[in-house]
């Protein structure tokens, strides 16, 4: 197993050629993974999806306005990638597909933080993707509504209405999960 991993080890950082898209991706790669997870990507698929985000980013790079912040744009790309993946396997999608993997051991605070995060993720899974994207961008990433609308290519009014509805759905989902936890 060890030698297998060695054979497949990635090249050293200095061997990665200079390229503006590659550099931008490298700078924001943590964010890309983060956005994909909030959009509902499972841990076992997030790396493949990140690669698809990169390829889509490469293709759309000429249209990116570099005077605007990159993260909302990246989020828009990630949203499209996840949407396409969801369409591909529409019937397989189960809302409760997210696993809570807390690993057991660890200090109480870390465990609690992980559980809290998992609870929010489970609740978000119950918000349809199009509305979830708006809510995550606005209420978690704190991106202004106008930028949310631009990144997702939707009218501003649509962004407002999706946000309003998504908040209601998230609140309801959190309440339901709390009830499920406390039910004997």
């Amino acid at each position: 197993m060890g030698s297998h991993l060695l054979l497949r080890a990635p090249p050293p950082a200095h061997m990665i050629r200079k390229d503006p898209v590659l550099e931008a991706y490298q700078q924001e790669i943590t964010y890309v993974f983060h956005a994909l997870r909030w959009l509902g990507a499972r841990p076992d698929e997030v790396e493949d999806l990140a690669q698809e985000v990169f390829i889509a980013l490469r293709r759309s790079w000429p249209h990116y306005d570099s005077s605007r912040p990159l993260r909302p744009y990246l989020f828009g790309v990630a949203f499209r990638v996840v949407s396409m993946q969801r369409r591909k396997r529409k019937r397989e999608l189960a809302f409760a597909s997210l696993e809570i993997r807390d690993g057991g051991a660890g200090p109480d605070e870390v465990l609690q933080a992980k559980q809290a995060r998992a609870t929010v993720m489970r609740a978000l899974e119950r918000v349809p993707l199009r509305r979830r994207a708006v809510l995550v961008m606005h209420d978690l990433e704190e991106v202004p509504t106008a930028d949310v609308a631009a990144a997702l290519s939707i009218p501003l009014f649509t962004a407002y209405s999706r946000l309003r509805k998504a908040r209601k759905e998230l609140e309801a989902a959190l309440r339901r999960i709390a009830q499920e936890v406390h039910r004997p």
Partner: protein
Amino acid sequence: MKTPPPLSPELEAALAPHRTVLRLSPAVEARAMARAAAATESLESYAVVRAPHRPQWVFAMAAGLVLALGAAAYAARGWVGLSSSPPPAHVAPSAAPRAATPRPPAAVPAMPEPDAPATIAPAATPHAKRSAGRTTATGIPTNEELHLLRAARQDVTRGDFARALAVIGEHARRFRNGSLVEEREALRVKALAGLGRRDDAQRAAAQFRARFPHSVFLSTFDRMKETER
């Protein structure tokens, strides 16, 4: 400008702890960057064949890359692209659930696998939609695209590889980023190998491997290599 009302205390309490971006493990980051770098190489060399509107420096850069690849292939004099050691684009198994896909049937299937990766259409922005031309952003191939690819596949099956290559070229011209890119490029490798153009086949296979590291067609290429030995 109008702003949405503030979050309810309940939602604020739930979301506030999660506003920080968690750090990625260095191993995962390195793996993802290696894949991205490999895809960059692949896509650039791929663009050489058909991109008449690109500026000249792109041609120069891509031509340099092709020459370098050719020189490397000559130096290696072997099945460089199809050898058992994969290019750096290949991710570690833990990150690639698709790597364990079953072996495909002997003939190249007519349609790509439903979960075939890296066929995202470049519709990342509203502007991108405009420039995407005849690409199928929905991921569903048009009848015309299917028809062309079917013809190419039949040519390959019949052994008419030269004609297949012509049809593949036509498909590449008309459906540059169509839904069946993966299938088309797999057929290209087969057609080139069928014509005895080993170096070209190896190059195409290496590019294919970098672009579609989890493709089910890769095992077909490996079998082709074994058959030839």
